[in-house]
């Protein structure tokens, strides 16, 4: 019996893993026995986002390998084992640990290494590179004892590394040999603007600096001596001066190499040996090493096609990039330096807003050749499509970079894109692919992400994806209706603006002026909620009581049998024994089922509507107040015990949690809001799964936003780091106010942000940079809500007229006989159908 041919993939980096994942999805998985070697101790991880390791992401978070991937696809992986020779005569590969395997095909995906310039002293202590998770761990160790860190290299990777150094809390320097930062992608003016912005972040930039040697420092571990005689004391030194292909194995195997390294490949990504391919940063195509991940992925796809007998070509890749460096948007497309013959250049520079844009167009002004964007890269998607698809430019190309100050629309309509236009470059998804998926039934961006993988890599194409979706749905005759309901032809946000601007205080007023009919169970609670967010009047006032949803109407949570559960507020989850006893006594007196909630408080179940005021009277007398578990409002601020008790705690998480919970309690919002505060990065409070999560660090509070547990878990995004309490609270005030104003009804913060054009960056620009000049308003509104807080239960039990509603029958003191409890594990629970029948029979008998 002939066994399957063997395919060996050498290297399990980003490109190697992408190749395997594509193999696993093709029929080739059955054709070949697949073996891969990975010299690192862990399989592939996301090197592009390595700096997030310092922003709290773990090695697991960065992993690119789904759990069980190798097992499920029958791929054998040798971790922590490096291939040391490829014997092409015998067709075998051998590893460091002594494994020898016969191969039929080999794919080199050995990647690259960080280039360390040949400077005297480059091997001194704390001189490191920035490439692997192990490098990062060494950086962390070196940073513990040092104060100053310097990155040698001011290119893309160097600036990314500088962010990592800054995140470690070190005074950060960038030393660049070239006269400007990112010399490959930036022109002089763009580089200067970038430098200015980076320096504003507290990073010292030294350009045109030639390092002579590194010696022992006087105040620091090291000292960098420059050729011009200047010196720089620094502890940590990170070399990020470019990459070099990892080609020694291929070289020793006798494969054809480029003069300056790199494994030579043809358009099928084959090396000089027809059974051996090379992909990614180790491969040299047409004299080029591609130091980006997308071309590596394209090469991987070419090899898959070739193995499958399909015609495939790798014919170079676009090197356009967009990235965010320490909060600064930077993008570069095509011929940024205007080297093309006859090229015409347009520039726009805004010194106040620190924005620089440059367009390079063909001599006939019809085609875009290149672009540079600093400070505002929002036009990248559109410009890239003009460039890649050679779409004819508008009559005045500069309209593409000039700010829009009227209603004129200069964006490129997605309809202008050909089907072949690549929308997602990470996963090579074209507009045609997306249209097909929409025809096959995808109706939302989430559907499309699942079905095509578009926008699930770097996410940069998210807005474009949504435009394609909307445009296609409209073409298919779907009306993208955003009306709240049949009574209001407005979105929630539009209604909120009307309420705010026209100072509308009641539903009746609003529907008379801007709606029609009586309202319904969609618009009434939504409007009731907005009125509460804006004016914060008591929700059971006569004008408002009919608007409230089930739970708000009786300030408790209705359960399946029509009884209610009661949740008093326990701020930060901190409760003293007396209060705990009081809670127990109330539970006992009214025979309530008691359960600890996920939000660190106690839920008391099985209260009849007529019992609610009595229960709350007892609770309020004991010092409790409403927990707003019934409202679309702030629920809890969960906390770990923090530095007060914990050996590892960095700051007082409980204290902050209590302060925040007291600040925002009662705030009505589009949906419920959950917070958590952790006292250190062990994250025991699980803050990253909350709408607002806060983690204490040595440098201050780190703020995460828009996380979610529940149905669609989502890790919160790091929003700002190293904050003092005052700034933290300011940001949260603004964030919440903005959410309250602009989210759709019942939209949690996670979905709100995911649907926001511009996403996290936009949100930051609004909340941190005050791009909309709205922050004063947002803070004032929050302060108003805080100042007008009342415990809704206290107000209710003090008002006889409000208590009238809290009875089951208007004309009788009897109870609802349909409410039947049985006992389980020593507590009550609602009877099930069989038990009910039995109960009725015995009653009748």
């Amino acid at each position, binding site marked *: 019996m002939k066994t399957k041919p063997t395919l060996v993939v050498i290297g399990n980096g980003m490109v190697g893993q992408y190749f395997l994942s594509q193999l696993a999805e093709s029929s080739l998985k059955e054709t070949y026995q697949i073996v891969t070697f990975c010299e690192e101790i862990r399989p592939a991880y996301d090197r592009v986002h390595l700096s997030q390791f310092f922003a709290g992401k773990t090695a697991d978070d960065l992993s690119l390998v789904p759990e069980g991937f190798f097992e499920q696809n029958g791929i054998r992986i040798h971790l922590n084992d490096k291939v040391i020779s490829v014997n092409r005569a015998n067709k075998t590969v051998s590893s460091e640990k002594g494994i020898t395997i016969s191969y039929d095909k080999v794919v080199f995906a050995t990647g690259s290494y960080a280039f360390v310039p040949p400077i005297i002293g480059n091997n001194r202590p704390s001189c490191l590179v920035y490439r692997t998770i192990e490098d990062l761990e060494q950086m962390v160790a070196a940073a513990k004892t040092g104060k100053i860190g310097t990155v040698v290299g001011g290119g893309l990777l160097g600036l990314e590394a500088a962010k990592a150094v800054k995140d470690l809390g070190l005074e950060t320097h960038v030393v660049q040999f070239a006269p400007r930062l990112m010399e490959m992608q930036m022109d002089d003016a763009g580089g200067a603007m970038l430098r200015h912005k980076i320096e504003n972040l507290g990073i010292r930039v030294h350009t045109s600096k030639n390092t002579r040697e590194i010696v022992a420092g006087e105040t620091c571990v090291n000292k960098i001596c420059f050729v011009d005689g200047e010196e720089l004391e620094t502890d940590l030194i990170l070399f990020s001066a470019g990459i070099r292909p990892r080609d020694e194995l291929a070289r020793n195997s006798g494969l054809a190499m480029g003069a300056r390294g790199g494994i030579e490949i043809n358009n099928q990504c084959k090396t000089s040996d027809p059974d051996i391919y090379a992909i990614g940063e180790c491969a040299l195509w047409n004299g080029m090493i591609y130091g980006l991940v997308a071309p590596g992925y394209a090469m991987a796809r070419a090899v898959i096609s070739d193995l499958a007998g399909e015609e495939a070509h790798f014919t170079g890749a676009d090197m356009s990039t967009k990235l965010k460096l320490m909060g600064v948007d930077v993008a570069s497309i095509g011929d940024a330096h205007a080297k093309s013959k006859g090229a015409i250049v347009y520039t726009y520079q805004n010194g106040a807003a620190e924005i620089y844009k440059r367009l390079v167009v063909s001599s006939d002004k019809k085609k875009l050749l290149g672009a540079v964007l600093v400070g505002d890269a929002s036009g990248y998607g559109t410009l890239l499509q003009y460039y890649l698809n050679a779409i004819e430019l508008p009559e005045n190309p500069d309209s593409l970079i000039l700010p829009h100050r009227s209603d004129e629309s200069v964006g490129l309509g997605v309809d202008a894109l050909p089907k072949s236009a690549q929308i997602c470059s990470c996963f090579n998804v074209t507009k045609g692919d997306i249209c097909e998926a929409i025809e096959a039934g995808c109706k939302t961006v989430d559907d499309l992400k699942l079905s095509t993988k578009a926008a699930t890599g770097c996410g940069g194409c998210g807005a474009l994806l949504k435009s394609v979706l909307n445009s296609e749905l409209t073409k298919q005759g779907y009306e993208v209706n955003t009306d709240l309901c049949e009574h209001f032809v407005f979105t929630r946000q539009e209604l909120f603006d009307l309420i705010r601007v026209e100072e509308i205080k009641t539903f009746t007023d609003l529907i008379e002026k801007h709606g029609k009919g009586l309202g319904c*169970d969609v618009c009434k609670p939504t409007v009731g909620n907005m009125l509460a967010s804006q004016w914060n009047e008591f929700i059971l006032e006569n004008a408002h009581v009919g608007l409230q949803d089930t739970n708000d109407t009786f300030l408790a949570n209705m359960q399946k049998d029509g009884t209610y559960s009661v949740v008093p507020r326990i701020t930060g989850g901190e409760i003293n024994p007396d209060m705990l006893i009081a809670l127990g006594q109330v539970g006992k007196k009214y025979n309530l089922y008691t359960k600890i909630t996920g939000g660190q408080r106690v839920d008391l179940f099985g209260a009849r509507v007529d019992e609610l005021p009595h229960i709350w009277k007892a609770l309020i007398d004991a010092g409790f107040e409403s927990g707003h578990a019934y409202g679309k409002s702030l629920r809890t601020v969960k906390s770990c015990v923090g530095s007060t008790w914990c050996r590892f705690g960095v700051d007082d998480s409980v204290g902050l949690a209590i302060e925040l919970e007291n600040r925002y309690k009662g705030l009505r919002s589009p949906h419920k809001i959950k917070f958590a505060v952790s006292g250190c990065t062990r994250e025991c409070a699980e803050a990253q799964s909350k709408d607002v999560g806060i983690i204490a660090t040595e440098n201050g509070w780190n703020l995460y936003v828009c996380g979610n547990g529940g149905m669609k878990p989502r890790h919160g995004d790091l929003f700002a780091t190293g904050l003092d309490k005052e700034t933290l609270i300011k940001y949260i005030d603004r964030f919440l106010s903005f959410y309250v104003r602009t989210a759709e009804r019942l939209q949690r913060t996670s979905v709100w942000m995911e649907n926001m054009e511009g996403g996290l960056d936009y949100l930051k620009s609004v909340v941190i940079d005050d791009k909309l000049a709205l922050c004063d308003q947002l803070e004032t509104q929050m302060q108003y809500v805080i100042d007008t807080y009342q415990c809704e239960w206290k107000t209710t039990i003090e008002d006889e007229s409000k208590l009238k509603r809290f009875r*089951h029958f208007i004309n009788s003191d009897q109870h609802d006989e349909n409410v039947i409890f049985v006992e389980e594990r020593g507590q009550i629970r609602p009877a099930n159908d069989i038990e009910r029948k039995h109960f009725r029979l015995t009653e009748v008998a």
Partner: protein
Amino acid sequence: MNWLNVCSVSDLQNDSGICALVNGEQVAIFYVKNTVYAVSNFDPFGNANVLSRGVVGDLKGQIVVASPLYKQHFNLATGVCLEDENVILPVYASRIENDTVQIGVTL
């Protein structure tokens, strides 16, 4: 038909509901645009006596209440469920006489 006095108009809440015990049956009474409507208080989907606590409004011209449990809508005049027309709530005759709310019962 006999008209039983249930409560006074001042016991009603505009655009909202209350529950009354009428001849041993739970009746949900709603007060919308100066008109009273009465249907069974029993939610046949959630199997609980809760309909009087639902939000009142109109959908496509019909005056409805939304179940507070699973949000099905019932026409207050006919008892028909908008989501499933095979489900129909018992409807009671109702009126206001001299500021008193009355429910009609057949003996």
